[in-house]
């Protein structure tokens, strides 16, 4: 019988085998080192671009951000490079995750029960939720669209002498809207990976998650990894821990 790690390993390609991920008893491998590296790289660039952008977006409020980057002119100089860094590493992640993030009818169904999800009305996620749920995929594709918008509008604003004043003024608005959407989204991303769903962030630090986390939030993925029924395993665990209370 294949162990969880083995099951995952035969799906791994050469780049996923870079580095070392310790999977302890009771855990499942979730993100290999390469995925984690990409995540934190574009995470860093996201915040550098966000904070340097703040100083330009609303200088009246966020003027205190610009000195961190060496003053207004240096902030302006660095911001496009931070953005390119973000897009570069996120682009690699898009290639890495392209199959995993493919939208399915189950994701549409998940989005329709968003209310249930937010209110915690279900103890566990429905059996169709795989490696990523609809919300996670939606956010991923929003960032992909955002990156496309950033790059196009960013280059227009970077080289106004080529594109002209009308295009620049339109690009300015689109760039802002894209930034606002991603700023809105980052709060949910950070919340759900830390306080909102405890046990999540270790997937991006150590690379593993507990089995309990997996069957609660991604039952289909749990089933794929272990070949076992997530709901039966959860009930068995409840019986073991709390003795049918």
């Amino acid at each position: 019988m294949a162990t969880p790690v083995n099951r995952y390993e035969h799906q791994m390609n050469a780049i996923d085998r870079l580095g070392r991920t310790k999977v302890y008893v009771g855990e499942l491998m979730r993100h290999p080192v390469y995925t984690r590296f990409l995540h934190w790289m574009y995470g860093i660039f996201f915040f550098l671009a966000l904070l340097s952008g703040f100083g330009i977006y609303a200088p009246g409020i966020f003027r205190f951000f610009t000195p961190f980057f060496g003053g207004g002119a240096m902030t302006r100089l660095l911001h496009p490079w931070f953005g390119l860094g973000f897009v570069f590493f996120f682009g690699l992640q898009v290639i890495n995750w392209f199959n995993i993030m493919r939208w399915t009818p189950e994701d549409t169904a998940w989005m329709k029960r968003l209310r249930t999800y937010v209110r915690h009305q279900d103890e566990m996620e429905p059996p169709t939720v795989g490696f990523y749920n609809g919300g996670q995929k939606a956010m991923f594709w929003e960032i992909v669209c955002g990156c496309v918008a950033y790059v196009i509008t960013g280059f227009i604003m970077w080289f106004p002498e080529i594109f002209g004043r009308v295009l620049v003024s339109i690009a300015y608005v689109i760039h802002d809207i894209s930034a606002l959407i991603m700023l809105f989204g980052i709060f949910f991303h950070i919340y759900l990976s830390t306080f909102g769903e405890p046990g999540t962030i270790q997937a991006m630090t150590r690379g593993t998650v507990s089995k309990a986390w997996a069957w609660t939030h991604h039952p289909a993925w749990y089933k794929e990894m272990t070949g076992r029924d997530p709901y039966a395993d959860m009930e068995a665990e409840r019986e073991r821990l709390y003795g049918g209370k």
Partner: protein
Amino acid sequence: MADRKTLQIKQMSAHPGPIAGAGMQRVSELCKLIDTTTCIGCKACEVACVEWNDMPFQNTTFDNTYQTMPDTNWNYWNLIKFNESEHSDGSFAWLVRKHQCMHCEDPGCLRACPADGAIVQYANGIVDFQQENCIGCQFCVSGCPFNIPKFNPSTKKVYKCTLCSDRVSAGLEPACIKSCPTGCLHFGTKDDMKYMAEQRAKQLRDVSGFKEAGVYDPQSIDGTHVIYVLHDITKPEKYGNLPANPRIPLAFTVWKNWFKPIGLIGAMMGFVGVVIHYVFAGPLRSQPEPPVESIVSRPAPGKES
């Protein structure tokens, strides 16, 4: 670029809060009047501008016109535009216009600028760039309806005509005015110049046969502090792309002033949302959770024990 202490500032780009010292003194609005009908295109003003501002010389571009170069530059703020046109009777007409910053009452550059104090408007109406505060984003280039601010790629700063704010602050007229041999350039208060311009336009209409003569002082940007007398006010575009209705892009007015703050508050609602969710709904923990011991909540009305 004048010393901030010698000219009172009325507006400052991207500045939070009020402008220190604004409205403390009586200041007349100033204006440059350019009578295109008496300009002979001698370019004395171009030379005076380069001389007074000590700007480095550069190679010019010859493109088969009398014009010094196709457009103004970061080190060439004042350019006579030569335009070939026709009089109403079909005869040849030179439309010669001195092109420089218009010093708008509602400056698009200042509205677009995201750097605190990089663009200021003095109480006398002069719009001035303070390069030490400029971050080189070139939004002002996009905000200007007259294509005036010019970027210097080596210093990464933007430059334009200052209306000789340094001379004006010392009680002198701008260098171009001083150099004009025909008297087509005038400098004084906005009221005086407007009156003078109207008189001249009336003279052109009544005596000289230019039925469409008028004063260019576009109200779409609340007027300018550089005004023109034109032979034909109905078609200012003939004078080398002088827009009839100059407009500041909505991105730097409606979007920047209204939707940006609203959008920022909207995005921060994400933070408020997750805090509220954590307090009222709590975390979604991995199952199985410990069993519930008791639920503390407000008793239903009428059932107090």
